[in-house]
């Protein structure tokens, strides 16, 4: 199998332009971020921050500064409210399991939306093993949660509600503030968690304004290194650890703190937030050019998710009818353009993206869907290259489909 990859990569030789748009699934770490991280492997602060020697104290200092910065960017009150985790997957696991176990005497009901990322969806479902039940709130055809249904779903046994601030596939910006008010009005004890991985660095986010109890953010989603995320837990809320081991600077996550990754995530956050307006404006401009260009060039398309300011500025999700998504991602890769698809063929269980199904897309629409996210590091030339190459790629795959895919 690995030999195959060698051959596969060879097919990409001679590519003149590469455009990475699969920022949903990983990202390119800017050199500045890498440069900021490297000294922490072997030049300084390589110690364990809980030990009484210079490299340890150096690590302690830089980690504390990072806690403070991430707390500021998220709008947390104090740095103790932040826990670094190996990614948003672990942060979501901790948020759900950790609160559920700590609150179980108050009730055993969890409420999420139908379009949560799988690291929320499957964790909530897994909690069934421990006697918890999960209710999923439906969404409309743009991915907005049904607030009425949310209100109905919460009762005095509901211990946790978890709804993403921005949906990772559709870019839908949820009315979190309203949702929190609705939930707290029905049950002030219910905790509210939001996976803000796709909001952080893309839309204004402040956990105190939103009045959420817990929030998740992730590093690679803002061009930071993979393998780092953070969870916000409002001061005073009870939570249990879900992993045991040596506790260091943070009581909710054991193990030796990964100083270089923490530094990288912090640096990536700085870069995202120091020019927040300009950065997000650029994402939006490039995204709009990309989407408008594709709609100009091709017919039989569906735009997935909302338009306008209720959509995160980086997200583009388009269904290309009569075109199979997995085949298209390969065709595009051979041209140096990297995207992902919600096609059933690209999944282990051969079922299309649950998010696209939840907004009422037919299977054949989900089948040709591609997800792209812009970053501030992309250029106008990159978008021009995509617009120049994509129609040829789509037309070739549509040519293979012929009349077969028309239902």
């Amino acid at each position: 199998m690995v030999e195959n990859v060698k051959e596969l990569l060879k097919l990409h030789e001679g590519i003149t332009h590469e455009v990475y748009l699969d920022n949903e699934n990983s990202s390119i770490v800017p050199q500045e971020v890498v440069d900021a991280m490297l000294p922490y492997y072997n030049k300084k602060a390589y110690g364990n921050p809980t030990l009484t020697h210079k490299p340890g104290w150096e690590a302690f200092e830089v980690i504390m500064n990072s806690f403070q910065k991430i707390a500021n960017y998220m709008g947390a009150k104090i740095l103790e409210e932040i826990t670094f985790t190996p990614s948003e997957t672990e942060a979501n696991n901790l948020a759900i399991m950790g609160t559920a176990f700590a609150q179980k005497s108050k009730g055993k009901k969890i409420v999420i939306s139908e379009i949560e990322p799988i690291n929320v969806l499957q964790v909530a479902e897994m909690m069934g093993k421990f006697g918890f039940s999960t209710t999923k709130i439906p969404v409309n055809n743009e991915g907005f949660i049904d607030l009425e249904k949310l209100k109905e779903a919460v009762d005095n046994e509901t211990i946790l509600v978890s709804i993403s601030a921005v949906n990772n596939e559709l870019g839908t910006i949820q009315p979190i503030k309203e949702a929190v008010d609705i939930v707290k009005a029905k049950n002030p004890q219910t905790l509210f968690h939001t996976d803000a991985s796709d909001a952080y660095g893309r839309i204004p986010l402040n956990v105190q304004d939103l009045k959420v109890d817990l929030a998740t953010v992730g590093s690679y989603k803002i061009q930071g290194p993979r393998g780092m995320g953070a969870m916000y837990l409002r001061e005073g809320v009870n939570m249990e650890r879900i992993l045991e081991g040596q506790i260091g600077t943070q009581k909710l996550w054991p193990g030796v703190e990964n100083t270089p990754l923490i530094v990288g995530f912090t640096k990536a956050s700085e870069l995202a937030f120091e020019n927040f307006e300009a950065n997000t404006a650029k994402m939006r401009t490039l995204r709009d050019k990309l989407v408008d260009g594709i709609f100009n060039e091709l017919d039989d398309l569906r735009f997935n998710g909302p338009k306008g300011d209720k959509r995160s500025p980086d997200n583009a999700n388009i269904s290309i009818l009569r075109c199979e998504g997995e085949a298209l991602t390969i065709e595009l890769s051979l041209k140096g353009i990297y995207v992902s698809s919600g096609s059933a063929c690209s999944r282990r269980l051969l079922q299309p993206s649950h998010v696209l199904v939840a907004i009422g897309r037919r299977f054949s629409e989900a089948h040709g869907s591609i997800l792209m996210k812009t970053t501030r590091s992309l250029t106008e030339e990159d978008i021009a290259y995509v617009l120049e190459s994509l129609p040829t790629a789509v037309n070739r795959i549509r040519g293979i489909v012929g009349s077969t895919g028309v239902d």
Partner: protein
Amino acid sequence: MSRIPLPYNPKVMDLFRHPKNLGKMEDATVVAVAGNPACGDMITFYLKISAQDIIERASFESYGCAANIATSSIVTEMIKGLSLEAAWKDITWKRVTDEIGGLPSVKFHCGVLAVGALKRAIRQYFKEKGVAAPEWLPNEHTFEEKQALEEEELAKTLSKRLKPEAEKQS
């Protein structure tokens, strides 16, 4: 909902990039479809069959992944010049998978579907011709045909689970 690495081999990639016998055949003797656009995996086979029941030409269209495209293409190559009997007996999904140099296990079904479509086309040929099926053609469905049926059933069940909005869209 999770993903799986798919390191396609060079032969699959080659047939994906340069599929042989692609496209509708205007003068096809028989056309058969397997799969369902709802679940995405769908293949159309076009066969030109001589009076002596020899497959003179075969072509395909595919609404599926790279493995689906490549296996369909290779089947059209493998059956060219074969008698219907030989095509029926010799072309199994295992042979097709071997011929293509192996597939990731999650993609086996794409090859199965290609062979299912072929078997369906052969069956249909005799039906349309209005002659009794030859004795080598069993009444019972082969593994590949059963799989194709199963996949089509699954597509129906999945579509039923769709939301009402989906019905409204065209």
